[in-house]
C-alpha cells in the first residue's frame, strides 16, 4: 500500500512536471492493469513524447510475449502546438503467479538515455472469464454449441439408438463454413448414417430453453454390439465464423471479423445392458425389437417333382439385418435347396424397419403327405423387457400324383433307403376291418410254469413208457409163452421118464409113446381115448403143422407101437429118442 501510494504520488509529480514543463521529454511505461489473472493478457505501452532511438524493451523474464512490439507514432498540431507521441506496445501473458516485476525500458532521445520506471504486476489465479465480454473468443463460446443428442443412453444389446448431431448458434454469430475434422467411427456399434442433403437452418430451435438457430449436422442409427460402457467418439467441426468485433466502421456499424473455431461434442458414454438371461429361449438368435413372424407356402397341394416355395418371413422394427432367420426343417424325402435371402429394410431415425425373408425351394420326391413342422422365432422386446416367441402354424403339403416311391427304386442314390424299397406299392392303404383281439398282457408262454409242465410231462411219459415196456409188457409176454413152456417141460418130463428106462426096450417105447401122446393132449387139448394115428395127423394138419412133420410124428408113434409089440426087432433107442425130442420142438414152434 505504501509503495503504491508513493508511486501514485510520484506519478502525480511526473504529470504535474509534464504539464508545467512543456517540451520536456517523457518516456513512460503504461500497463493495462496491475492485477491480473494467470490466464489474462497484459498490455504494456512504452510511450515517449519525443522521437527516440535505440529502444530497448525490458527483459520480460516472467512473461511471454504474445505479440509486439507494435510501433505507433502520432503527431498532432492543436492550436499551433505540436504534440508527438511514439508508442511501443507489447501483449504479454504472465508465466507464473505472484508479484512480477516489469523491468525498465530504455530509449535514447536527443543523445540522452531515458528509462522507464519498473512496474510491479500482481498475478493471481486464473480467472474464469479471462477477458472482457467483447472479446471475440468470448462471444463465440457463449453463442455456439455442438451437441450429440442420444435417444437412449442405456439401451439393451442390439437395441437401436439414434444419435443426432446438432449445431446451435445465435446472434451475433453467423457460420459461413463448416469442415469436419474428426468423424466418429462407432467401433462397437453397427451404424448407419442417415443422409442429410443440405444443412438447413432451423431458426426456431432452442438450446437450454433459449432460442437458437439449429442445424442438424448428422444423424446416425446405432445398434450396440457389445455390452458395458461404450464411448461414442466425438464429432469435431472446424467452423468459419463471422463475429462482430469491437471496432466500428465509418457508419458506426461493428466490423465483422472472420475467425476459425474448432468445436467438439466431447465424448459420450453409452451403457449397454446385457439382455436378461432368465427366460431366454433356446432358439434366441439375437433379434431385438418388435416383430411379426410367419411361414408361408405358395402351394399346399402339388404333384411330385414340382416345386413349391416356403417363405420364412420376419417383419417389424428392430435389428433386422443383425440376426439370422430360423431355419425350416422338413421331412427327409423332400429336397430342400439353399434359401434365397431377401431384405426389404428401411433405416430411418427410428431404426431398421421392414422385412427380411428366406425363400426355400422345396421339391417333393414321392407322393404322400408332408407336414412342415412349426418354426419358432424368438425375439427380445426392449419395451416390455421380455422375450417373446412366435410359432408358425402347422402346415401340410399334400403331394399327389406323379412318381410314387416305387418308381425311383432303381435310382442308385435312393436305392439304399429302406423306406423307398418298402413303399414300392402305390398308395396309402385303407384300415383293416376285421380283427381278432387278444389280451395285451398275455402271459408269456415261454418259460412259464405251464410251458415247463408241458415240456417235462412228455419226458415223464417217455420214461413211464420205457419202464412199462421193461417190466409190465415183458411179464405179459411170459404169460403167453407159459403154456408153450409147460408143454416143453411136459415133453421133457415125459421124455425124461423114457430116458430113465433107456436100457429096457419095451418100457422105453411105452414111455416114449405116452410122452408123445401126453404132449399132444396137453398141446391140442384132446383126450387120450380119442387118439388114433389118423386123427392125430388130421389134428396136426388142422393146426397148421407141416404135413411132413405130422407124418413124422405119426411115424414115430407107429415105430413105438411096433417096437412094443415086436420086441427084438432091430431098433435104435437113441435115434428114436433124438427124433422125438426134435419133433416136439418143431411142432411146438409151428403151433
Amino acid at each position, binding site marked *: 500500500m505504501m509503495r503504491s501510494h508513493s508511486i501514485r504520488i510520484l506519478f502525480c509529480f511526473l504529470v504535474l512536471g509534464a504539464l508545467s514543463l512543456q517540451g520536456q521529454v517523457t518516456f513512460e511505461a503504461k500497463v493495462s492493469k496491475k492485477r491480473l489473472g494467470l490466464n489474462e493478457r497484459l498490455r504494456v505501452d512504452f510511450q515517449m513524447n519525443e522521437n527516440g532511438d535505440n529502444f530497448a524493451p525490458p527483459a520480460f523474464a516472467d512473461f511471454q510475449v504474445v505479440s509486439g512490439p507494435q510501433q505507433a507514432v502520432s503527431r498532432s498540431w492543436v492550436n499551433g502546438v505540436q504534440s508527438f507521441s511514439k508508442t511501443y506496445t507489447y501483449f504479454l501473458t504472465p508465466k507464473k503467479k505472484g508479484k512480477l516485476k516489469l523491468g525498465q525500458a530504455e530509449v535514447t532521445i536527443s543523445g540522452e538515455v531515458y528509462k522507464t520506471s519498473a512496474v510491479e504486476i500482481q498475478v493471481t489465479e486464473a480467472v474464469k472469464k479471462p477477458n472482457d465480454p467483447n472479446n471475440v473468443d468470448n462471444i463465440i463460446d457463449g453463442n455456439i454449441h455442438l451437441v450429440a443428442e442420444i435417444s437412449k443412453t442405456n439401451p439393451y444389446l442390439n437395441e437401436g439408438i439414434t444419435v443426432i448431431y446438432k449445431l446451435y448458434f445465435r446472434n451475433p454469430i453467423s457460420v459461413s463454413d463448416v469442415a469436419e475434422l474428426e468423424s466418429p467411427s462407432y467401433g462397437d456399434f453397427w451404424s448407419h448414417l442417415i443422409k442429410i442433403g443440405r444443412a438447413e437452418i432451423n431458426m426456431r430451435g432452442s438450446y437450454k430453453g433459449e432460442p437458437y438457430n439449429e442445424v442438424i449436422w448428422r444423424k446416425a442409427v446405432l445398434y450396440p454390439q457389445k455390452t458395458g460402457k461404450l464411448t461414442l467418439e466425438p464429432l469435431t467441426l472446424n467452423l468459419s465464423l463471422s463475429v462482430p468485433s469491437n471496432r466500428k466502421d465509418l457508419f458506426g456499424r461493428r466490423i465483422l471479423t472472420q475467425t476459425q473455431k474448432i468445436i467438439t461434442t466431447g465424448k459420450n458414454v453409452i451403457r449397454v445392458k446385457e439382455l436378461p438371461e432368465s427366460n431366454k429361449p433356446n432358439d434366441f438368435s439375437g433379434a431385438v425389437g418388435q416383430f411379426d413372424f410367419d411361414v408361408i407356402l405358395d402351394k399346399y397341394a402339388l404333384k411330385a417333382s414340382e416345386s413349391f416355395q416356403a417363405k420364412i418371413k420376419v417383419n417389424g422394427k428392430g435389428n433386422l439385418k443383425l440376426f439370422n432367420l430360423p431355419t425350416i426343417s*422338413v421331412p*427327409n424325402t423332400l429336397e430342400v435347396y439353399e434359401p434365397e435371402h431377401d431384405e426389404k429394410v428401411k433405416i430411418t431415425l427410428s431404426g431398421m424397419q421392414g422385412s427380411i425373408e428366406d425363400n426355400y425351394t422345396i421339391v417333393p420326391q414321392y407322393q404322400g403327405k408332408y407336414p412342415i413342422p412349426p418354426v419358432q422365432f424368438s425375439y427380445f422386446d426392449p419395451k416390455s423387457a421380455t422375450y417373446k416367441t412366435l410359432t408358425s402354424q402347422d402346415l401340410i403339403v399334400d403331394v399327389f400324383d406323379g412318381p410314387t416311391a416305387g418308381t425311383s427304386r432303381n435310382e442308385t442314390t435312393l436305392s439304399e*433307403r429302406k423306406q423307398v424299397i418298402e413303399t414300392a406299392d402305390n398308395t*396309402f*392303404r385303407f384300415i383293416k376291418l376285421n*380283427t381278432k*383281439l387278444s389280451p395285451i398282457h398275455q402271459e408269456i408262454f415261454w418259460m412259464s410254469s*405251464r410251458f415247463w409242465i408241458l415240456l417235462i410231462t412228455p419226458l415223464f*411219459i417217455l420214461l413211464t413208457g420205457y419202464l412199462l*415196456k421193461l417190466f409190465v409188457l415183458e411179464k405179459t409176454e411170459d404169460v403167453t409163452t407159459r403154456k408153450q413152456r409147460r408143454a416143453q417141460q411136459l415133453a421133457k418130463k415125459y421124455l425124461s421118464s423114457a430116458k430113465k428106462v433107456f436100457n429096457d426096450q419095451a418100457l422105453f417105447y411105452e414111455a416114449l409113446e405116452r410122452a408123445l401122446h401126453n404132449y399132444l393132449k396137453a398141446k391140442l387139448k384132446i383126450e387120450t381115448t380119442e387118439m388114433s394115428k389118423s386123427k392125430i395127423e388130421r389134428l396136426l394138419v388142422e393146426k397148421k403143422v407141416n404135413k411132413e412133420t405130422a407124418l413124422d410124428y405119426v411115424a414115430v408113434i407107429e415105430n413105438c407101437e411096433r417096437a412094443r409089440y415086436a420086441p427084438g426087432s432091430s431098433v435104435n433107442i437113441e435115434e428114436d429118442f433124438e427124433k422125438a425130442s426134435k419133433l416136439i420142438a418143431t411142432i411146438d414152434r409151428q403151433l
Partner: protein
Amino acid sequence: MKKYLRTYGSLLPVIVFFSMLLVPSLSSGQASMEPLFEEGNTAYNEGDYNKAIALYEQTLKLGQHSAALYYNLGNAYYRLNNVAESIYYFEKAKRLNPKDSDIQINSAFARNMTIDAIEFLPESQLAQLKKRLFNSLSFNSWSILTVVLLWVFVGLFLGYLLFNSTQLKRSFFFSSLGVLLLFSWSFLITFSINQQEKNTQFAILFSNQIDIWSEPNQQGELLFTLHEGTKVQLLDDLEEWQKIRIANGSEGWIKNASLRALNETIIK
C-alpha cells in the same frame, strides 16, 4: 396186441389233460370288444379320426389288442399328421404281425413324414435269412411249436418202444429222431428270440427335437439332432440321460427325452 393198446390207452386221459393246458393260451378272451373296433372303423371312414382314435384306444385300455387295431390307430394318427404316434402304432402293429404288407406300406408312408433321413445299415444275407426265419412265427407260436414238437417226438418214440414189428419200429425210430432235431432247433430259435427281445428294447421318439450328445453330460460333444418319430434302440441309462442307437448305427446320449417303448413289458 390189444393188450398193448390198452396199456397205452391208460395214458390218454393224461395227454388230454395236458393238452388242455395248452389250448386256453391259443383261444381265449375275444368277444365283446369287437363292436368298439367296428365303431372306430366307421368313425375313421367318416373322417372323424379323433373319435376313431378314442374308440380304438378304449379297446387298448380294456386290455385288448391286435395288429389290425394298432394298424388302424397308426392310420388315424397319420391322417391327423401326428408323426410320432402314427409311427409308434405302426411299429407296434409290425411287432404283432411282421409280414403284413398293408402295415409295411403305410408304415413307410408315415416314416416319409419324419424329418430325419436315416440310412439303414445294410444287413448281410445271413442276417436277413435269420430274421425272416425268426419272424415267420410269432414268439408265442414258436414256444408252442417247441412244446408240440416235443410231444410228437415222445409219441413217436413210444411207438418205437411199444410196437414189435421191426418195420414199424424202424420208421418210428427215425421219424422220432427227425422230430427231436426239429424240436431242438425250435427250442434254440425260441430261446434266442427271447434273448433278443430282452436285450433289444426299441422306442419311438416323441420329443419334437432333441440333441444327441457323446457323453451323458453337456460337456460332451453335440453329435447330431433327432426329430420326432425316430425309432431308437435303448441301450443304457444314467439318471435322466439315455443311451440310444439309431438305425444307421450311430449312438449317443439324450437327456429327458420323451420316448415310448415298443415293448409292453418295459413300459413303466
